[in-house]
């Protein structure tokens, strides 16, 4: 890193810190949302470690409402954290598993 790049990185860090201070209430709320999301994702990842699971199975394992599980799984699938692995044996629900990226 050159001196100029270091200088720019420092300015950027200061700018972000100032913005966090300026919008502190809203940043706190967003941080709380992030923390909650991270906890839910950790629980879901834990429930999927044993293998592919359906939404009702994940809901039962985690205690989360099934609609919330579907939303989280859909969001994780969109960003490549979860993959779909076909229908269950009753042909009613799709199975979801951790992607290779997450397993690594």
């Amino acid at each position: 890193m050159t001196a100029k790049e270091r200088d720019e990185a420092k300015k950027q860090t200061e700018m972000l810190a100032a913005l966090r201070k300026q919008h502190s209430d809203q940043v706190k709320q967003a941080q709380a949302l992030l923390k909650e999301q991270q906890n839910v994702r950790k629980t879901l990842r834990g429930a999927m470690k044993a293998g592919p699971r359906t939404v009702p199975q994940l809901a039962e394992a985690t205690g989360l409402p099934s609609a919330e599980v579907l939303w989280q799984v859909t969001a994780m699938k969109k960003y490549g954290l979860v993959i779909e692995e076909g229908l269950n044996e009753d042909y009613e629900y799709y199975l979801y598993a951790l992607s290779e990226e997450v397993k690594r």
Partner: protein
Amino acid sequence: MSDNRLDVDTLVVGGGIAGMQASLDLADQGYQVALVERDPSIGGKMIGLSKVFPTLDCCSCITTPKMAAVAHHDNIPLLTYSEVESVASNKNGFVAQVLRKPRYVQEEDCTGCRSCELVCPIDLPDDENEFGRTSHRVIYVPFTTAVPQTALIDLDHCIYCGKCIKACPPDAIDFTQQPEHLEIEAKTIVLATGYEVTPYDAKKEYGAGKLGNVIDALMMERLLAPTGPYGRVLRPSDGKQPDSIAYVQCAGSRDLTLGVSYCSRVCCMYAIKQAMLLSGALPMADITIYYMDIRTFGKGYEQFYQNAKTMGIEFVKGKVARITEDENQNPVVRVELIDENSRVAERTHDLVVLSVGMLPGWNPQATFGVPVAEAGFIQIPDCNVSPTVTTQPGIYATGTAAGPMDIVDTIMTAGAAAAEAAAYMQNHKEQEPAVPEAAPAMRDKRSTVHA
């Protein structure tokens, strides 16, 4: 185009299919058109739909070429994420004040690569495009085929972690952006402000939006679209692949309790279309349409309805009185079966779709001085002869801004509005004082005026 002023022939308000078509029809004739869209992308409602009736052509395949054509047209300055705040008349036509909302991403630098979106740590419900069924990040490109492919930041949920700044190859992130104001002078205006659907949670008899497996037809369009949230049709309460799906017709139209006395025209046809698409997507599913009467008014529409019946879709005459749910969140429909001596029955389905109607998207009265008719759609004084001409000379209305209509009629009125605007500009030009041949001084003056 200077930084804060734009002179054009026509200002088109709304970048859905109506506004895009009107813009292209005018721009192809050589007119300069400013297209103003309030959302971050053009495409309107149509880009979110699955297929069109009665041909079952893919909506994306029709809409995306038009979006690209608008974005790349030399005669169309495109202003997305912008709103017309006020309009005044002057001797040349109109002067509009336009607010350009900040994206916090430099539009000219962003390539739409989504590197920022992939590193952003927070997921938010995608209410704008997916009815909250999936997520987008705090920084995001609105959807895969958005035009322009430019990211924006939802600052209300940003923690200013700076990951997007580090990930952005062209350094396009700019947290210092402020709203900008632009003045647009135009000779004519085309209003293409579209529609909203009647709220699916308005009727307590239908669960007031609290039943997990009662959705509206626009949500079903997303479930049927290949780009939809789940990539397939699943019910929202638990991700079950539905075996039994019911449509409730007139769930927002012809209903005085919602203040909507009119027929929204498209609901019968879109329900039949969706039922056909569901038959393809879920071949084992039972699909029922509860209706008061079926209105198939357009070319090829009645045949489409007959085909649906032949495919095994069940049409049940009767108005649904109430929807509740059982212990497994299956919706239970209470309906009077008119063809069975008006016997009242309760039927359980996996998923119920409310065929919601159309409401005006926006009231232009305050901004454009264009009055609306009783239902709230733009008043068209002579709708049989001039279906796009408003009460204000030089201002035209197209698509569902003027009343409920389908995509075919919307595209036709877009062409009509463009033709009316072009004729108005041509006539206005011809009405300017004629220049005598033997008056070179005056001819010079005229040429200066038009230079």
